[in-house]
C-alpha cells in the first residue's frame, strides 16, 4: 500500500481539518473546471448572457469574474 492510499484511508475519519481541506480542494477544482468551460464557450462564440444562464448566475457576475479588461471598462 502506498503513502497516498494510507493517507486517504487515514483521512476518512471524522476529522474536520481533513474534511474542510477536502472541501477547499473541491471548491478549487470546481472553479478551475468552470473557468475552462467558460473559456471554451467563449472560443465557440457564446455570449456572456448565454454562459450566465448555463451557470445559473447573472450576466453581470460572470462578466465581472471572467471578462478581461473590466478594470479598464471595456465591454464585450
Amino acid at each position, binding site marked *: 500500500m502506498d503513502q497516498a492510499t494510507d493517507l486517504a484511508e487515514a483521512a*476518512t475519519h471524522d476529522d474536520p481539518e*481533513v474534511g474542510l481541506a477536502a472541501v477547499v480542494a473541491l471548491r478549487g*477544482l470546481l472553479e*478551475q473546471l468552470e473557468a*475552462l468551460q*467558460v473559456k471554451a464557450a467563449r472560443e465557440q462564440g457564446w455570449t456572456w448572457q448565454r454562459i450566465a444562464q448555463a451557470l445559473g448566475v447573472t450576466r453581470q457576475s460572470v462578466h465581472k469574474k*471572467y*471578462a478581461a479588461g*473590466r478594470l479598464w471598462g471595456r465591454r464585450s
Partner: protein
Amino acid sequence: MSAKLGDEPLGWVLREAQEEAEAARHGYFGVEHLLAVLARGRSRLVAEVLADHGVTYERARDAVRVVVGSGRGDGPAWGAAVLLGTLGIDFDKVRRQVQARFGPDAIDELYASPVGWNLRPRGPLCGPQVTPQFKQAVHNAVGRCWDRDKVPPQLEERLLLGALDVDSAGLRGVLAELDVSPLGLRQRVAATLRIAS
C-alpha cells in the same frame, strides 16, 4: 520583467521540487523538497557534502515524507488527490479527462487568456503551490531576478545555503529526522563555497 516560477534557468529546481511533492502527494513544495532534489547529485560538491552528513537522496526523500506526512512541514500535508479521494473523487482521472478535453497545456493557457486574466492561478489542477520559504531560499541564492539569463556559479551550493538560512520548521524537522546539525551543515556548505570561489 517580473520573475515567474518555472522560468529558466531555475526552472529545473522548481520542476523537480514540485515533482518530488507530487510523487509524495503533498499539498505544497518547499525547502524540504528542495533538500531532496539537491541530494539527487546534480552537483557533485553538494552531493558529497550531504553524503558526508549521511544524507543520500533516498534518506532525504523518506525523511521529507515522514515530516510532511505527519503535518510538521511548512505547508499542507495532503495534496488535492488525497483530499478529493476522501470524497470519492479520482483526481488523477479528472486531470486526465481535462487534458484530453482541453489539451495538455490547458491550465497554463487558461490563466494567460483573456478569460483567465482576472483569476488567481491556483487550484488542484495547478499542482502543489510553492512555499514562501522556498521563494526566500531562491532569493537568498540568486537575488530577486529569478528569470535573469545568468545565474551565479555553484547554484546548487547557493540554493542549499539559501535553504538553510530560511526559517523553515519543515526543513528543521527533516534535518532532525536525518540526525544532521543544521549549523554544521551550513558551515560546511559555506566553506565549500568559499574554497571554490
